C-alpha cells in the first residue's frame, strides 16, 4: 500500500513541528530553572565534604560557600578540605549562566522517577563544558543529575538532592554527589620512604574520584 505524497509530507511536517516544539520546550524548561537559580542573588551555606579517592584516605571536612551573583563563588574551610574544582559551586547554575542551546533528549528513569533528559550545549567557546546532559525532575522542576563532558575530554557526573524546601525554590541542592576522573598516582619510594615491600601498593592507572557534599544552613538573600 502506498501513502499519498501529500500525506507523507504532512506527516513529516508534523514530526518536524513536534520536534521544534520539543526543542523550544527544552529551552523553556532550562530557562525556567535558570530564572529560579538566578533568584538567589547572594547566598551562604555550610558544606560537609566527603572525598573518596582510591589512593587517599581523607577525613570528612567542613567548608563554607558564599555566592554572589552573577558568578562569584568563594569556598572557605576552617581546616583542611579538598574542594572539587568543578561541581562544588553547584554546576547546573554555572552551566546555565552562559549562553547555551537546550535540546530535548527524551525521558529516562533515574532513582525511580521519570526524568526529562535535556542536552545542553554551551555556545560560548570559553565554557569549560563541551556538552552536558541534564536530567530534570519535571514535578519539582529541578535538575537531579548532570552529566557534563569537559573540553579536555573528562566527564563529571553530579547527582543532586533537594531536601531543603526553601533552597529548592532556587534549585539549590542539599546534597550533591560528584564523580569525575583524576590522573594516576605515583610517588617515588625515595619520597614516600616506603622501601619495605609489605606496604599496600597504590592502584595503577587513571582513577575516579567520588565527592559527596552536604549543604546545610542556607542563608539566601
Amino acid at each position, binding site marked *: 500500500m502506498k501513502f499519498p505524497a501529500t500525506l507523507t509530507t504532512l506527516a513529516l511536517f508534523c514530526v518536524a513541528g513536534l520536534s521544534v516544539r520539543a526543542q523550544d520546550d527544552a529551552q523553556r524548561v532550562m530557562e525556567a530553572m535558570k530564572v529560579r537559580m538566578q533568584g538567589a542573588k547572594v547566598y551562604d551555606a555550610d558544606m560537609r565534604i566527603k*572525598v573518596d*579517592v582510591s*589512593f*587517599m*584516605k*581523607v*577525613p570528612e*571536612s567542613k*567548608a563554607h560557600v558564599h555566592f554572589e551573583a552573577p558568578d562569584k563563588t568563594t*569556598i*572557605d*574551610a576552617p*581546616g*583542611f*578540605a*579538598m*574542594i*572539587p*574544582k*568543578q561541581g562544588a559551586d553547584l554546576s547546573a547554575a554555572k552551566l546555565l549562566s552562559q549562553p547555551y542551546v537546550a535540546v530535548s533528549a527524551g525521558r529516562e528513569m533515574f532513582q525511580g522517577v521519570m526524568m526529562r533528559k535535556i542536552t545542553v550545549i554551551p555556545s560560548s567557546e570559553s565554557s569549560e563544558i563541551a556538552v552536558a546532559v541534564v536530567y530534570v525532575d519535571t514535578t519539582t522542576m529541578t535538575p537531579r543529575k548532570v552529566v557534563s563532558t569537559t573540553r579536555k575530554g573528562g566527564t563529571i557526573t553530579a547527582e543532586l538532592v533537594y531536601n531543603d524546601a526553601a533552597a529548592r525554590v532556587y534549585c539549590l541542592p542539599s546534597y550533591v554527589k560528584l564523580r*569525575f576522573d*583524576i*590522573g*594516576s*598516582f*605515583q*610517588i617515588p619510594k625515595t*619520597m*614516600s*620512604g*616506603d*622501601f*619495605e*615491600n*609489605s*606496604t*599496600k*601498593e*597504590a592502584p595503577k592507572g587513571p*582513577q575516579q*574520584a567520588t565527592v559527596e557534599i552536604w549543604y546545610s544552613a542556607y542563608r539566601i538573600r
Partner: protein
Amino acid sequence: MMLAALRVELAKVFSKWRTYIGFIAVGLLIPIIVLAMGKEGNQYFSFATQALSQAFEFKGNLMNGYTVAYIVFGALYIHIPFLVTLVSGDILAGEATSGTYRLIFTRPVKRSTIVTAKYIASMLYVNMMIVWMAILAMVLGVAFLGTGEIVVIRSQITIIAEHDALWRFVLAYGFSALSMMTVASIAFLCSSLVENSIGPIMTTMAIIIVFTIISAIDLPMFDVIRPMLFTNHMTGWKLLFDDPVPWPRVFTSASVLVGHMVVCFVAAQIIMQRKDILT
C-alpha cells in the same frame, strides 16, 4: 645496689663526649629541616598531589608542625640507629678497651647487676635521644608552622585529622623507642663479644644495612626471610599513621622487637658471665 650501679653507669655514659654527638646532630638537623620545610615544603606537596591538583583545590595549612614532625621522624629514623650504637656499642667493649673489666667485676657487686645496669643505662640513653627528637620536632614544628592535619605520603596519601594526631605521635615515638632499643640491644650484644668499641658499632650498622636491603629487594626468595628480619618491624611506627591503624601488625612488630631485645640481653648476660677477665 642496682640503683647505685646504674648511677655509676649513667655517670660514665654522660662523661664521654661521644654521648652528646647524637643530641648535637639531632639538635642541629631538626631546626634546619623545620625551617626548610616551612619555606619550601609546599613544593613537596605539589609534587605528591600533582595528579589531584587538576581536580581539587586544597584548603588549610598542609605544611604544619605535625606534618613536619612526621617528615622529620621518617627522615631521621634511618640515621638514628648509628647515633644509638655509639653509646651501646661502646658500653661493654669500652671497658675491655680500657682494661677495666677486671676492676669492675672484682667489686662486691654481681656481674649480672653490672651488666644489667649497663644495659639499662644504654636504654635510658636511647629513650632520651627519642624524647629529645620528639620535643625538638614537635615543639619547633608547632611553634613555627602551627598545627593542622597530618599529611602522610606513602604509597597512598592519608590525611589525619588534627584531633587525631597527638596520640598517634605519642605511640609512634614509643614504638620508635622500642625499635631503637632493639638496635641498642644488638649493639650491646656485639659489645659483649669484642674488645674494642668500633667493632660493635660497625657490626650493628652492617646488620641493619644488610637486613634493610634484603627487606627492600622484591624477590620471592626473600619473602620467607623478610618477616623474620627485625629491620622489617622497625618501621612499624608508620602503621600508627594508617587509618585505621592495623593493630595486629603493630603488636606483632612490637613483639618481634621486644623478643630481639630479650634475646640480646640474655645472650649478653650469658657471655659476660662466662667472660674470662683474667687473661
